[in-house]
């Protein structure tokens, strides 16, 4: 029962994380590029319930940050005016899907107040909003990349395992070639030959494409192995003896045996590819400013002064760790399930 509850918790967490980043505009109080130039590196706004006079408020409120007069770059709360946190507040417009835009945000405070749940970055942009928008790029690069890799990998792996002979030889040599490629340098090279200016969506698709294309080799090899053993099973042999076509055998008897493994691989590949996007963006090869991704956000930490002074800049890393753990845990669970089914 306890285990079951944990599973529910992890799956809910994963679902919630994905929901947040599918609709970042709604959950984020601000636009990812909105600069608050008077407030670079402002710390997270604490939520208050008790005001300066000692009165308790049932609805939380925040104070604005103002620069401390005695020291540059340090902030203190301006206690003269409090700003209540409002649910379903109207704010800056954002695109929901396609041409559909909205101004409705999950929460917000009335201007001129500002709520920075995770503080601000070096341009005074809300780190929480940027994390949500950034998650959209990073998570989807991971998901789509994994889908591309898995699709290409399983198609080639299954074909290779099932038909064997020269098909197998060609595909497997190709796999070895791809595994041996120094893919980071390959990506540097790919980026270098592309035109200077590519749109964010193109950069994103490119990222997904390249990551997926490079990542298909391992799943292909794994699935080939499974198909090799699956096609020797008695019921497969029986089906073949009865004159079933290759397509039928693949669809009805061989592929179902690979589904469990595929799911497990997927759960492993997604975080791996999220990390690939993070790495690429960290190195400046991903989507460009001002569009955030988790890699971009973490790249700020390359600076010694940021690393030692502003703890909230680590928050994207924590989100990444949580997401990874959830995916890894799911993958482990799936593997258990697969093992049970296969025995």
């Amino acid at each position: 029962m306890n285990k079951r509850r944990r599973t529910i918790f992890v799956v809910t967490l994963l679902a919630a994380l994905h929901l947040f980043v599918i609709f970042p505009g709604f959950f984020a109080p601000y636009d990812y590029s909105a600069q608050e130039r008077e407030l670079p590196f402002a710390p997270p706004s604490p939520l208050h319930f008790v005001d300066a006079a000692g009165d308790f408020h049932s609805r939380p409120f925040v104070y604005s940050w103002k620069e401390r007069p005695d020291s540059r770059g340090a902030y203190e709360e301006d206690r003269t005016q409090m700003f209540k946190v409002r649910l379903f507040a109207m704010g800056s417009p954002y695109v929901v899907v396609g041409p559909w835009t909205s101004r409705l945000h999950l929460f917000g405070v009335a201007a001129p107040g500002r709520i920075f749940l995770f503080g601000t970055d070096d341009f005074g942009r809300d780190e929480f909003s940027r994390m949500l928008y950034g998650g959209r790029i990073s998570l989807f690069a991971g998901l789509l990349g994994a889908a591309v890799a898995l699709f290409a990998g399983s198609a080639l792996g299954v074909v290779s395992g099932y038909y064997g002979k020269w098909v197998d030889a060609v595909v497997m040599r190709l796999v070895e070639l791809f595994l041996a490629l120094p893919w980071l340098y390959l990506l540097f090279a790919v980026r270098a030959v592309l035109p200077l200016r590519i749109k964010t969506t193109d950069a994103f698709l490119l990222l997904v494409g390249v990551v997926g294309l490079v990542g298909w080799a391992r799943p292909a090899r794994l699935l080939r192995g499974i198909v090799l053993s699956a096609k020797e099973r008695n019921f497969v042999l029986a089906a073949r003896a009865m004159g079933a076509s290759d397509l039928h055998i693949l669809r009805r008897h061989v592929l179902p045996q690979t589904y469990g493994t595929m799911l497990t691989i997927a759960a492993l590949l997604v975080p791996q590819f999220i990390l690939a996007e993070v790495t690429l963006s960290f190195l400046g090869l991903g989507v460009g400013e001002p569009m955030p991704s988790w890699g971009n956000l973490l790249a700020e930490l390359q600076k010694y002064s940021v690393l030692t002074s502003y703890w909230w800049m680590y928050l994207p890393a924590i989100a990444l760790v949580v997401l990874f753990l959830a995916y890894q845990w799911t993958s482990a669970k799936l593997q258990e399930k697969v093992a049970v089914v296969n025995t």
Partner: protein
Amino acid sequence: MRKTIVSTVCLKALLVSVFVMGGTAATQAAPQDYVTAKGGTGQAGGRLVVALRSEPKTLNPILSVDATSREVIGAMNADLIHINRETQRTEPALAKSWSVSSDGRRYTLQLRRGVKFSDGAPFTADDVVFSFQLYLDENLHSPQRDLLVLDGKPIIVRKIDAYTVECELAKPYAPAERLFDGLAMMPSHLLEKPYREGKLEQTWATNAPAAEMAGLGAFRLREYMPGQRMVLERNPNYWKTDAVGNRLPYLTELTFIFVPNEDAQVIKFQSSETHVLERAGADNFALLQKDAKAKGQCLYDLGPGLEFLFLFFNMNHLDATKSPEITAKQAWFRDLQFRQAVSLAMDRKGMARLVYDGRATPIWGNVTPGNKLWLNTNLPHPERSLEQAKTLLQSAGFSWNASGALLDTQKRPVTFTILVSSSNAQRTKLATIAQDDLKQLGMDVHIVPMEFRALVDRVLNTKEYEAVLMNLVNGDVDPTPEMNLWLSSGETHLWDLGEAKPATPWEAELDHLMEAQMTTTDSAARKKLYDRVQELAAQNLPFIFLLSPNILVGAQATVGNFRPAILEPYALWNADQLFIRAAGAAKCQ
């Protein structure tokens, strides 16, 4: 009729050296003209450690190109006339005095007597003539050669007697004295032979044995460990004394360690492994400030240096068939009102604050407030105004569509790309702010960070770019090094390279002004000419001037006589006077 310039420092030096000689005359045969260095006195002894960003590529002054090599070479060599980094004016060095002929073309330099190289050999006019021969030798490709050639004619240097040389220029050259700064005088007794044998380019590489080297600087080479450090030791024959007659330098050892990145340099400075932090970024400076007092470290914000950051548009005359996209946009770029609108939209204060933690100075012209002698203080500093910018765009025929995007006269959306160097995070940040500022005007701007050499290639060679955000650093306060920038035929006339004739009336006027200032010897008249240059640049905005970053320097409080300046080398220009104090006496200047 000759005009004689003898500095008072020099006269004092003579007096002091007579006084010094009282004690040492028995051992010194020749009379000596030591210089008395201004500034406080210190204690002899001690070792100073400084981190360098990279290893010096060579120790040969003729061949050095990179800043690191120059810095190390600067500590080991001396020049005839030196630019004082603090006053930004020239002062006598190995030449104790000089005179100029009435036509302004001939300089006669009197050399100091009794000066010796670090290996004990005497320094005479032969060494000067030999050094200039090396700098001017076309086969050696010395980067200094360009400066010594006027109108295609190299400077002619003649020996008059053992302590007098004459330099003849092709035409009057106003900043001629400043030319001598940084031209290290070389020992002919050591280098004549390799030069005759055609091996000079291989001599004095970084692995040269210390015994084969000699210089006239405060320090000489002791050892070099590739990848780790270069150790210089005190030159016992140095030709300067302090106010009470002690022979300089005070330090017995000057050690350079190689620390390739700024953050690592900051950490080493923080932990007192190095004495001097030659140049810090604003963010690290703020970080160091937090516990500077407790750690006994002194931090100096020297204000704006000579570096200026700017945005500029491609106004080159391009082939419309080859680069149709760029040429289509050049109608905007060439429109002064467009450039003025862009300039008005720039949030210079915000940039200084966000990117440089407030340690940068907004500028509206090419001369920074750090250049005390030449700044035109009458230039207007228009406040940021999006309203005015929009009015300007409107009067230039631009309009806006329903969603606020800016459209040109042919109803095409205004969109362009700004290139920045990817190795410079601050530059990208500036561009991000500029992008946001221009978005307010409805311009759709993209930023493309690019490897620096690829960027320079686009700017200077292929001209495939729309706009670039970059910097220029003047090596000297004098306007003459900017000839290449402002002359319409100049090699770094960035916005429109290789103009056959000036493309606009103001560029024609710039040509005239720059030529005139170079040959005008009256300094007030020169200043007037150069003021007009600054005015024209500010009015016509070939560059949208943005900021000048402050020079930020740090030193341990134990370093005495530390007087950083905004001219390179910021911290070590008076290395001969630096000394290490006892920890108890440590204080910041």
